[in-house]
């Protein structure tokens, strides 16, 4: 797409067409400029690694019952984080639980971003009746108490990873649509959009190629934040018993199953709670840091 390649450039000029890897390395090095971003990225990365490596590093199968441990479920040298009320290794379940959370939450955000961006772009670009319709529709979705909405939908359609993703996409898309709409309304007045119209570009091209790339900064920050919230919601759904179906480990479900024994064996509920918190804090800090870095440039 770009006519210039490295050979055309005089040696003294800026290294304008960097390699892809270099560009990413530069972006990653930006992360080091913000402490929150660095801590957040660290936390998220920790859980991503845990999820990816779970089959390798988890000491036990997440659903294997160790009957011998039932008598003494507290953390020990055989079960570092102890076992739960069924004698399953908490560490293994937390590690495996990261897999489900880190698939469902980002996929749901991606879905919401896709749907929301499309709605927001259309509403913000066309304004008028389209805008009114989209904004009102979003308002209607947002005016529902979400937890009740989740309960109704998941109770009706059944609880599965796919349904959770669908429900999260549906309820988060309006929020992203609002953000994108606001940005679009501002960006559509830019002179480069007028220039695109003057050379006869289609509205779809203008929305996707001229406007959307320039909305990516705030959008990425928000997606990061939204992923964190999704982790909370997935936890809450699990806790309410409409999360991912058993026996697959699910942090919220683990808390639900064991919080009754909190006063006796607090470790059973506390470790999955800590897992949820640290991941959410990680995403939030990353979002804060990304915003900070974005503002600086």
């Amino acid at each position, binding site marked *: 797409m770009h006519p210039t390649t490295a050979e055309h450039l005089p040696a003294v000029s800026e290294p304008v067409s960097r390699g892809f890897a270099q560009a990413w390395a530069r972006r990653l090095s930006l992360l080091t400029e913000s402490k929150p971003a660095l801590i957040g990225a660290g936390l998220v990365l920790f859980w991503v690694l845990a999820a990816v490596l779970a089959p390798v590093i988890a000491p036990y199968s997440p659903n294997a019952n160790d009957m011998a441990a039932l008598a003494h479920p507290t953390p020990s040298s055989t079960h570092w984080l102890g076992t739960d009320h069924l004698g399953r290794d908490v560490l293994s379940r937390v590690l495996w639980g990261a897999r489900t959370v880190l698939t469902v939450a980002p996929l749901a955000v991606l879905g919401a971003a896709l749907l929301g961006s499309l709605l927001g772009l259309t509403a913000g670009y066309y304004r008028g009746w389209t805008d009114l319709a989209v904004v009102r529709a979003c308002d209607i979705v947002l005016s529902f108490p979400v937890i009740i909405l989740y309960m109704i939908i998941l109770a009706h359609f059944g609880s599965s990873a796919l349904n959770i993703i669908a429900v999260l996409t549906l309820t988060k898309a309006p929020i992203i649509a609002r953000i994108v709409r606001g940005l679009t309304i501002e960006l559509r007045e830019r002179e480069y959009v*007028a220039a695109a119209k003057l050379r*006869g570009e289609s509205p779809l091209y203008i929305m996707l190629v001229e406007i959307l790339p320039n909305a990516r900064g705030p959008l990425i920050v928000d997606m990061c934040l939204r992923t964190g919230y999704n982790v909370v919601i997935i936890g809450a759904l699990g806790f309410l018993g409409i999360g991912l179906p058993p026996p697959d480990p699910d942090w919220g479900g683990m808390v639900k199953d064991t919080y009754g024994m909190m006063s006796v064996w607090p470790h059973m509920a506390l470790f999955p709670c800590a897992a949820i918190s640290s991941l959410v804090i990680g995403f939030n800090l990353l979002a804060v840091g990304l915003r900070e870095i974005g503002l600086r440039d």
Partner: protein
Amino acid sequence: MTDAPILALENLRVSYASRAGLVNVIPDLTFSIAPGEAMGLVGESGCGKSTVALAIVRYLGRAGRIVGGRIRFEGRDVAGLTPSELRAVRGHRLAMVYQDPMASLNPVMTVGRQLMEVPMLHEGLGERAARARALEMLAEVRLLDGERTLTRYPHQLSGGQQQRIVIAMALIAEPALLIMDEPTTGLDVTVEAAVLDLVRELRRRHGTSVLFISHNLGTVVRVCDRVGVMYAGELVEEGSIRQVFANPRHPYTRGLLDCLPSVARDKRQAPLRPIPGQAAPAAARPVGCGFAARCAHVEPGRCTSRAIAILPVVGEPGHAAQCVRIAELPRWERRLVEAGAGADRPPGRVTLRIEGLEKRYLERRGLFGSGRAPVRALNGIDLLVRKGETLAIVGESGCGKSTLAKVLTGLETATAGRVEIEGAEVGSVPVESRPLALKRTIQMVFQNPDSTLNPSHRVGYAIGRALRRLRRRPGGEDASEVARLLAVVKLPADLAGRRPDRLSGGQSQRVAIARALAGNPDVIVADEPVSALDVSVQAAIINLLNEIQAERGATLIFISHDLSVVRYLADHVAVMYLGTIVELGPVVDVFAPPFHPYTEALLSAVPVLDPDAQGARVVLEGPLPSATEIPRGCPFSGRCPRRIGVICDETPPPTRQLSSGHRIVCHIEAEELRELQRAGDPVTRRSG
């Protein structure tokens, strides 16, 4: 002057912390301001003039640091002041006025509160006394109806009024030094002229010292006694206004003067000569003279081997320049070319015909709203533009000149009237419905270099895409064609790989011009293409537009508020006011009496580089009226200094044809106008 200076900077050094480490932006700066003196600081963006202002009040922010030298204000070292002493100095002994008045005013407080706060805080005045002082001050800054103004919120005032309030706030504490940083940059010419006159008068009356920072040499001439020219953080020339502008000794000062168009001359008489190259970034300061790389008089060994001293100009006390060749360079003279050098082209065929064009914007009715009066942006525009001609459209902001551009290009559609391009009616055709050939015919260059290019797209893509869309070229030929277009706008081909954030303002604007040229347009509409650029860059872009237009024989519609640029570039000029054309004609006729009274006011408001020029002869009172309530008679009657009576308010003025193609829309006979304007008598608004 024997008095101790109010402000003295001694070998000031300022650095900014950046990703690359400490960058020395002000390497070594020394100057002083005597009591009652007004010193101007001019230079292009990035030369450090605002940094100086911020350093003086110690507002450099977290990244900036004074790393050496001394700033003495009223004999005290500013660096040694404690925070509370500093607070007492700021706003009381030393006040600042910035470019954007809204940034200095609190939007949730009435103007009166904000004004009264100053003496109440610094002098412990009571509420009543403070109010009296505020009223007094409002009268001084010529805001009529002070009582009512005091109860207003900032957003209820116009830009010019806001800036007056800020000036009043600055002066109400009777400071010893007033620092003004681009105080008139966002204002219309007529408002700017009024504010400058005000500053000049207040200074005379209060004896306040002023440090006046501006990129516009003309405004400095109007307000200041002395001027310092800054380049790359250094004061390259200093002297009285007369010394510096009559006998500039530093090549950079000369360069600046050479790139300034003047209302008195056009392209055939005095070509603009832009300064080649661009300023080196502060991080890569060269050894020796900072300007050497761009200087026409550079002598490699002498200029680039060691630091350059500031040398006095022989026979001119107080005049000094930082140039080793100060005594050798010949006297500067504005280059004049023999008139008629650019021979007149025979008039081409009519490319663009506009008849009775009107554009109204309807305020959108809310769900329950009752609908407001429409905004009448254009009210009956008639124009003919011939092929190969440059038509300039001038007027203040809100006069409808940008709306006209949008209707021409199809970004907006006309409410009534006809617009014909090459015989085809296009006024009611939005750009989406225009055929490719028509889109190709008319292209636009925009105002803002930061927003004209998509920050996500590389230059090569921006131009290549325009080529593909407008010429339907297959993708394979792009690279060479992009390079060719870049060459037309005098940019190296390797720029194609850059993103807009790595381009300077001038480069962005060149790329935008190349993009507009991709379809080989017959008509180029340029909406304030140089107003956001520095003077030296501005000159280069103006020359480029001129060249391209002459080479391609394209028609150029040049929209501008800057009459000097218009005078330089245009063949014909249309002066717009409130959506109508009040005067139209060949540039020579429009810039000579008889003028339409509005043209006269605009012209006299243009700051001129002549130290002997007095303030504006015609000062317009009041802001531009709202475009929702167009007067029944002459649109200008409400502000017209030559209004003759009720007829102006009630009856639409006749169009008076003067010579070929020159017309003025006014109730006053052309001959009478000529007499009035030749006499040059200072006009006062006639009461009617």
